């Protein structure tokens, strides 16, 4: 797993898969019993640490460490993972507080330092934070609770079994004794550490905090404009830098107007950097260092670079469209899934359908452009970085500067959006490389134009589908030839079918084939990678088949799911057909599926399974003669197991619907001659408030292990809307963004 990240020259291929697996892999290595260790602290206090990779700091630790700390002053919980808007700075500590039986009002939450030895992996990606840390954090809370109870038992001279806990206190019912955790912390620190495997954990009906609506721990700081984000960080004597790379990836600096730039007001220095050959780390470019952001930005406008593009990307979207159009009727180069006998099923079908779906490249467009503060001194570098993968960032920076990883320190900041973009740490490497040349701390600031031209794009793609229905109108066969992209033979990130991809295992005769076109420009994980586009393709096509059969879409979907069962036994991240049917039914019921609709108005249904989350959505839309779509309401039903923070969970689904709608409406990145043709939001028109639909969120309160919500709400949105447009108009949309077919939202 580590190799995939650290090998120089490694591209973004499967980073999302690796991120998915990363936390699990390293936690699996450590038994649940072993990973908690009590650490005595100077000044008293109880501290629990993740000690998977080395012993935690022992007595004398002056810095916060571990998941919680209680002393006479209060209760502090540590939020381990980067906050990118998915709410983990609130939800992860809530899990600890639940088992600790701490009153949420009594708790202070602090962002953890980046420290693999103490925290294990610290990643925001793959909707994994809750799922992967659930047992770990519950055990951390329960262990501390047991020790507090133990200390109280000694103090009161009663057996621990007679004691209860509630609201940060140990209670003894018979005598009415009530001891605050803060008074007990010192004594609890001296208690033996219970065996984590024997600790009783609450059942969901015992939860007092989880499942409630809890407001974000940073809310007040946010509305006061406090410096939480990467871009807000500053150091004494700091200089401001910008970095210009070749608009076509891989271009090298031949020359630039050095003396002219140096003479501009506020400019301290200008120099070129070679790049280290890894497009995920440092690409060649010209750095300008100035005494203010504005001076650097103004100078960048005057910068003229002569690029050597002999080895640069020449990617062209229009060429890709033409090539895919030629290839789509051929057999795919690879068969990824080949179940049953697709050719026979298609040939024997009572009806046979063919459709061709296309989706464009897209940008992450996280609202905070990349930035990073770096200070280089004495052969070591310290960075303040809005990154989703801080540990990986350490490796990237170390490799860029040729330093041992121990010489790189990263401080995590709040991130102004992630969406997958900040899984990649090129901006950290640039900041570090510039800081290494400057005798002061440096803040690197990307412009929006830098961000849009040097994103790791959500790859576009093309799908030629064929499907058949048997005499009963059941889906009998399905073939998809996916025309995608590969960089030197390696599929681009998000550009290939992943094992078990929906609807594998649900359609007996299923063949998924791939052919890759050459592509050089970096692609990357974009919220619900691959699912965010494939959901549109497959769920639209299944609706096409249901329509051709003259059958109700809901009925056909439930028929495809069949009997309740796990697909892929032993895999807790697999689709469960009963859970799938459950959310589809719930969404349909809440949206009034089947009710008569006036002309020009329709309901559309879609389901998708990703990141262990089962989500169904129903869109209610009307469409006017100008192909303007008004989305009245989107009804969402999700099954992700127990909900940690209901407010955060609802917010994620509301946001996923709006992000999905925004992206499908008109967001497209196109390339010619290796250059991105869009440079800023004027050419990348995200959805605005007047076009935001009502969103109703419903959860199936199942007690399967919990999973995350940052991503799985997005994939069903586009097909639900397109299916509704079909219901309203009879027009089948087969291109994203839908502006390509003349449609708009609003």
């Amino acid at each position: 797993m580590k190799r995939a990240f650290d090998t120089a020259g490694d591209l973004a291929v499967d980073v999302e898969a690796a991120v998915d697996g990363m936390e699990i892999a390293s936690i699996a290595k450590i038994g649940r019993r072993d990973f908690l260790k009590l650490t005595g602290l100077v000044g008293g206090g109880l501290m629990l640490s993740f000690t998977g990779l080395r012993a935690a700091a022992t007595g004398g630790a002056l810095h916060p460490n571990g998941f919680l700390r209680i002393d006479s002053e209060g209760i502090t919980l540590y939020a381990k993972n980067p906050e990118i808007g998915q709410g983990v700075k609130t939800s992860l500590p809530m899990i600890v507080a639940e088992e600790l039986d701490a009153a949420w009002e009594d708790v202070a939450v602090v962002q953890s330092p980046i420290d693999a030895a103490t925290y294990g992996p610290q990643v925001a990606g793959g909707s994994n934070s809750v799922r992967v840390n659930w047992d770990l954090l519950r055990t951390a809370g329960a262990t501390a609770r047991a020790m507090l109870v133990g200390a109280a038992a000694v103090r009161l001279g009663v057996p621990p079994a007679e004691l209860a806990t509630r609201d940060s206190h140990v209670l003894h019912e018979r005598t009415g004794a009530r001891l605050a955790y803060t008074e007990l912390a010192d004594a609890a620190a001296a208690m033996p550490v219970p065996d984590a495997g024997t600790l009783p954990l609450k059942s969901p009906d015992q939860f007092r905090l989880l499942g409630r609506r809890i407001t974000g721990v940073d809310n007040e700081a946010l509305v006061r404009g406090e410096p939480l984000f990467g871009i807000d960080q500053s150091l004494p004597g700091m200089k401001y830098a910008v970095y210009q790379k070749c608009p076509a990836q891989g271009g090298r600096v031949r020359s630039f107007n050095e003396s002219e730039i140096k003479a501009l007001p506020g400019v301290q220095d200008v120099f070129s950097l070679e790049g280290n050959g890894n497009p995920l780390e440092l690409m060649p470019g010209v750095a300008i260092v100035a005494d203010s952001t504005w001076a650097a930005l103004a100078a960048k406008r005057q910068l003229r670079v002569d690029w050597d593009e002999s080895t640069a990307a020449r990617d062209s979207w229009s060429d890709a469209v033409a090539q895919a159009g030629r290839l789509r009727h051929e057999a795919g180069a690879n068969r990824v899934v080949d179940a049953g006998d697709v050719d026979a099923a298609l040939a024997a079908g009572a009806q046979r359908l063919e459709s061709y779906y296309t989706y464009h490249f897209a940008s992450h467009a996280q609202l905070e452009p990349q930035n990073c503060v770096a200070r280089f001194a004495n052969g070591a570098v310290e960075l303040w970085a809005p990154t989703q993968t801080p540990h990986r960032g350490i490796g990237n920076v170390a490799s860029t500067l040729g330093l041992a990883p121990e010489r790189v320190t990263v401080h995590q900041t709040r991130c102004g959006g992630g969406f997958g973009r900040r899984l990649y740490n090129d901006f950290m490497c640039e900041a570090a490389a510039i800081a290494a040349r400057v005798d002061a701390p440096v803040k690197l600031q990307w412009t929006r134009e830098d961000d849009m031209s040097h994103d790791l794009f959500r790859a576009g793609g093309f799908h030629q589908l064929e499907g058949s229905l048997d005499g009963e109108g059941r889906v009998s066969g399905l073939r998809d030839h996916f025309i995608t992209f590969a960089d030197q033979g390696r599929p681009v990130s998000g550009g290939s079918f992943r094992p078990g991809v929906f609807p594998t295992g649900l359609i007996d005769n299923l063949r998924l084939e791939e052919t890759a076109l050459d592509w050089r420009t970096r692609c990357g994980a974009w919220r619900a990678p691959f699912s965010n586009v494939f959901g549109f393709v497959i769920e639209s096509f299944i609706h096409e088949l249901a329509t051709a059969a003259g059958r109700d879409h809901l009925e056909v979907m439930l028929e495809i799911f069949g009997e309740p069962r796990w697909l892929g036994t032993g895999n807790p991240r697999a689709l469960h057909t009963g859970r799938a049917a459950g959310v589809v039914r719930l969404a349909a019921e809440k949206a009034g599926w089947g009710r008569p609709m006036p002309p020009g108005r329709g309901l559309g249904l879609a389901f998708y399974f990703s990141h262990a989350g089962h989500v169904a959505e129903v869109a209610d839309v009307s469409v006017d003669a100008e192909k303007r779509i008004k989305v009245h309401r989107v009804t969402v039903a999700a099954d992700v197991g127990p909900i940690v923070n209901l407010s955060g969970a609802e917010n994620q689904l509301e946001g996923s619907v709006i992000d999905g709608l925004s992206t499908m409406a008109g967001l497209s990145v196109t390339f010619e001659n290796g250059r991105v043709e869009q440079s800023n939001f004027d050419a990348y028109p995200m959805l605005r408030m007047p076009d935001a639909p009502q969103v109703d969120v419903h959860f199936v309160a199942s007690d399967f292990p919990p999973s995350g919500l940052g991503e799985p709400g997005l994939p069903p949105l586009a097909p639900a809307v397109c299916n509704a447009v079909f219901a309203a108009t009879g027009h089948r949309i087969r291109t994203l963004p839908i502006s390509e077919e003349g449609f708009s939202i609003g």
Partner: protein
Amino acid sequence: MRLNVNGKEHELEGVDPNAPLLWVLRDGLGLVGAKFGCGISQCGACTVLVDGQPVRSCSYPVAAAVEAEVSTVEGLAGPDGELSAVQQAWVDLDVAQCGYCQAGQIMAAEALLRENPSPSDADIDRAMAPNLCRCGTYLRIREAIRTAAEKRTEGGQS
């Protein structure tokens, strides 16, 4: 050059009069609430008030603000630090996801409510359309503005 921000006069030296107000606030005065998102008046992350009107400070030359009163999100709370009705509604309704756009949203909402104490949903949509939220918190922003409007009307806040 003198600049009045949140009721305080600042003496600025050696500032390029063409420098956008945003960067003077952020780098010069350390007021980092207003954010940089696009630099071309498209996202509203940099929204501050100049004489009560919302402006995109990324594209507003500092020289144009010299005779005016500039308000930023840092200046909204009362003298004892109590949050404004708008800020409080944002906290209570848990509006933010990443939060990056929210200072700009809050300033746009403040400007709206000062001008129009009981806006209709259409008024809200119109006033807030210049402000993008990449995370898609529009529904909660709308709700927070309604809540703040009610509270302001009740409390007689102007």
